[in-house]
């Protein structure tokens, strides 16, 4: 079953007076439970594609559907609801809310979903335990290492059981050992809990872990390898 369907997506940016073609009619399907990487050099369009799959940006033409819901005609509010219920994000710079503790950061998504306090606190702690942060619930982001912060970000992304987790260069700010540990953890989540992961990366280590590697160059899919 395809959890993500991308059809003939085109996206153009204006940089100064120059028109930049970020995506030139990309079509792509990702299956449920996939562990795929969108790879390519800087400016290839991989992050733009990830943002469009995540509903953070809208294509100029073409369509995207996640878990059967097409983004066409959706308002910003609809897209916000879609992101809240079906998509988890992991960012390169962790991007945790600095004034919230680890457990509060993870809880926040469930708070937006309207879950009651007792349930969301328990679930947030369980997921933090799963990512190896047992006992660090009350630490603020500034009190955690980069690797620990990225684990909190992963916990935040998966806690509400989204249809897909989109990770934009998740290991870029981590040393190789920490990055490896993070990828191991995400692979385990993927295998044990069938969480679908889609990465945007130019890190060889991520590409090695990915079971499917989609190479993007100049806004087009150059290669699509299923390992």
């Amino acid at each position: 079953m395809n959890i993500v369907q991308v059809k003939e997506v085109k996206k153009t940016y204006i940089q100064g007076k120059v028109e930049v073609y970020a995506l030139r009619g990309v079509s792509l399907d990702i299956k449920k439970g996939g562990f795929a990487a969108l790879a390519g050099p800087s400016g290839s369009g991989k992050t733009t594609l990830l943002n469009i799959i995540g509903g953070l940006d809208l294509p100029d033409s073409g369509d995207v559907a996640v878990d059967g819901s097409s983004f066409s005609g959706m308002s910003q509010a609809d897209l916000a609801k879609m992101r809240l219920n079906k998509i988890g994000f992991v960012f390169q710079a962790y991007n945790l809310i600095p004034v919230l503790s680890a457990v509060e950061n993870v809880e926040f998504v469930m708070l937006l979903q309207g879950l009651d306090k007792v349930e969301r606190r328990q679930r947030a702690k369980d997921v933090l335990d799963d990512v190896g942060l047992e006992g660090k619930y009350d630490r603020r982001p500034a009190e955690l290492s980069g690797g620990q912060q990225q684990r909190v970000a992963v916990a935040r992304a998966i806690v509400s059981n989204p249809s897909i987790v989109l990770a934009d260069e998740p290991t870029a700010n981590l040393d190789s050992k920490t990055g490896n540990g993070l990828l191991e953890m995400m692979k385990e989540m993927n295998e044990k809990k069938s969480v679908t992961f889609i990465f945007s990366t130019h890190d060889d280590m991520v590409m090695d872990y990915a079971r499917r590697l989609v190479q993007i160059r100049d806004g087009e899919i150059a290669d699509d390898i299923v390992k």
Partner: protein
Amino acid sequence: MPIDITMAWRNIWRNPRRTLLTVAAIGFASTALVFMLSFQFGVYDTMINSSVNIHAGHLQIQAKGYKEKMAMRYAVADPVRMGNLLNGIDDVKSYTYRAEGFSMLSSSDRTYGVLVTGIDPDKEKQVSTIKSLVRKGEYLSSSNAYEALVGSLLAANLKVGIGDEITILGQAKDGSVAASVVTVKGIFTSGIDEFDRSTVQIPLKTFQEVYSMDGAVHRVVVVCKSLKSVSMVKAALAEDISGIDEKYELKVFDWMEIMPGLLQSIQMDLISGFIMYIILVIVVAFSILNTFLMAVFERTREFGVLMAIGAEPGRIMKLLLIESITMTSIGIFLGMALGSVFSLYFQKHGIDFTGASEIMNQMGISGLMYPKLTLLSLFTGPMAVLFITSVAALYPALKVKSLRPVEAISYN
């Protein structure tokens, strides 16, 4: 505690120095507004009470036309009947009768044109503070003696002292010549130069005899138990006198109608004060606007992340508004507390303005000024600060609404 409030509180203290400066600006403005408004209200009270207690009273009953023309014939023919009406109104503290006539006043050296006032010495001392203002000699002893109480500046101008004789020459109510000689019994200083320069008071019965008043008076002067009860007493009195059949229709005037100049000077002072307060409040509003614009710029990426994980812009706006209202409320609360402390301290001890006594005497107030803390002076300024700063905080909050998540996340 709801997470929005927890987040707002923690966000406020992310940059403690900036928060403290903003709170201090709001607090300072609120303190200043509470104290300055209390001070203004205190001064107005002093001005009104000085004028009311020295001469004018809170209310006056006059014949229609007397206020405008001050002609002798516009008189209240049966003042005792008015007294009986006033005795039946609870909020009336005291009252007295006065009759007046413009006359030439001559000493052995000089002549001046002044307003001679006939007063009932016993009733007058319950209405006016003039007895306590006698600096030389004594207060009038009885209602039919040929003696006078003279303002200090007029006495100096006439070059008269205690025991000297003054000749009064004017026109009586019936058109005949009113002439008499009175002895200076006392000299008073009210502090109001205009009053001290133009006032001569003689016993009412003497006045009625000299000016052929036939028992009539020109003013029935009423002092109420408080400034607040004036309008109520005025309404009751107006109703009571409406049916009385006198030659001239009777009218009730309050202190604002009797002393329009005083009311206008209070209004002018209030307007100029409000212009200054508005400038102060706008300066504070810019301060909080700056703080929140900085917060929006600094936290744009964070707002992008919040939107990416599913928060709607309205929720982020709400968070920002909670932060601004919390910060403003802390400043306002501190300002109200400090403003109240200052106001109450000086309400008890007064502020010494003896250096400006010349100007203050013109306004009828002494060298010590007392602020008056009221609910109005406590809340008006701070609530204006709350309103203006809330409006100022709306702009940065609305900017969040126009953010696109993808642009916000990559904002540097």
